[in-house]
């Protein structure tokens, strides 16, 4: 407004800058760009605020979920620490394995870690709890995308099949026999589903073998 009030300006350039910008924008379809840009900016700001507000509670809930899963594979009476926060990262064959350690009076009593294998559709993630002698304390399926009604009997809420592994180890049954019945082992498959239980049994065997091969490192590393 001030520029139009000042008399010395020549008539040709008297158009205010804002009006010229607006005209330019209209010609180039810039109004739409402004609308969309404004919406994007507002959306980004909203998301930043929402992310900031929810970050801490979400991390808290995830930790709580983990603690509850670990509770199911490591009995409460053999440890006095919180295994969910007491973790050790192990480098095994170039992969990082996150090991949760349970200890009582600074003595390691058990470890828990995840193993995964391909099931019928996608990875099946299994959490193993193993005591210092290599005996299974508990096994739970954390995540899977198997067929509902067929493969989902590996969930503890649908069948007690998964609890059958409690107390077993690599020598019981012998290592070569860690397989489902169809493959010559002692473990039941379900009617209509062989691939899913096979993946679970094999991944538990993988985990036990991994523990056996790295027992020294695992317990030492963990004992520090």
């Amino acid at each position, binding site marked *: 407004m001030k520029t139009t009030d000042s008399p010395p300006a020549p008539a040709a350039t008297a158009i205010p800058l804002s009006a010229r910008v607006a005209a330019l924008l209209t010609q180039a379809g810039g109004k739409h760009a402004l609308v*969309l840009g404004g919406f994007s900016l507002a959306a980004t700001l909203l998301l930043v605020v929402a992310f900031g507000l929810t970050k801490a509670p979400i991390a808290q809930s995830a930790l709580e979920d983990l603690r509850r899963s670990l509770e199911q594979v490591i009995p409460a009476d053999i440890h006095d620490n919180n295994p969910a926060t007491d973790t050790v990262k192990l480098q095994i064959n170039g992969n990082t394995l996150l090991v949760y350690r349970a200890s009582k009076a600074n003595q390691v009593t058990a470890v828990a870690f995840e193993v995964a294998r391909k099931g019928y559709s996608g990875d099946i993630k299994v959490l193993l709890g193993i005591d210092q002698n290599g005996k299974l304390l508990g096994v739970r399926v954390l995540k899977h995308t198997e067929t509902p009604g067929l493969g989902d009997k590996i969930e503890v809420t649908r069948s007690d099949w998964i609890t059958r592994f409690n107390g077993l180890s690599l020598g019981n049954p012998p290592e070569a026999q860690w397989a489902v019945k169809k493959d010559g082992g002692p473990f039941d498959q379900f009617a209509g589903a062989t691939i899913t239980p096979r993946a679970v049994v094999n991944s538990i065997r993988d985990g036990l073998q991994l523990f056996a091969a790295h027992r020294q490192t695992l317990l030492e590393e963990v004992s520090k």
Partner: protein
Amino acid sequence: MSQTRDIALDGLWRNNVVFSQMLSLCPALAVTSAATQGLGMGMATLAVLVASNALVALLRGLITDEVRIPAFVLIIATLVTIVDLAMNAWLHELHKVLGLFIPLIVVNCLILGRAESFACKNSVSLSALDGLAMGLGFTFALTLMGALREIGGSGTVFSGASNLLGPAFAALEMRVYPGEGALVMILPAGGFIVLGLMIAAKRAMDARKPATRPKSASLDTPTSVAAAS
């Protein structure tokens, strides 16, 4: 008054998203292997739909015609992400049950469809009402399909409802008959079969009752029959 009644009836039954508009069939087929899952997906969609319709109606003066689709998508995606984050933070148990479905709502064409065909032309309150009616109709359709498939396939209905709605709803969980049922019903094929039967039933009901709308009465000619078939 009759306008609100029309909006409500359209959303709930006459122009039902799944059975009449045949939109959002992907979630309708994918999540309805059990009644509780259908109900959960329906409720999550309902919440997002009411909010997005109201927001689009509120901002409709700002949105120019040429960029309305990207603007709608932006609004919907932002809304869904915020709902997802907020539920994960403060309704964590519910999020564990519904978490899988929430990101899917972004690509649910029902939401964009209502923004485009209703909310950007109507007031905030009418749009919210339309969202409510359409969302309830969607929830009804998904729950019905889920219940039929669950009864046929698992022999139960609303199993796991107390996880979704709280312990008070444990009474909903029922076993209809002992045993396993026909597995095909909870597999994808069962979804198509039930959806097909439901659409056929809706069509049969619509055909039996002569259309009450003024236009369709005069259009009852061989051409419209040919077009419909």
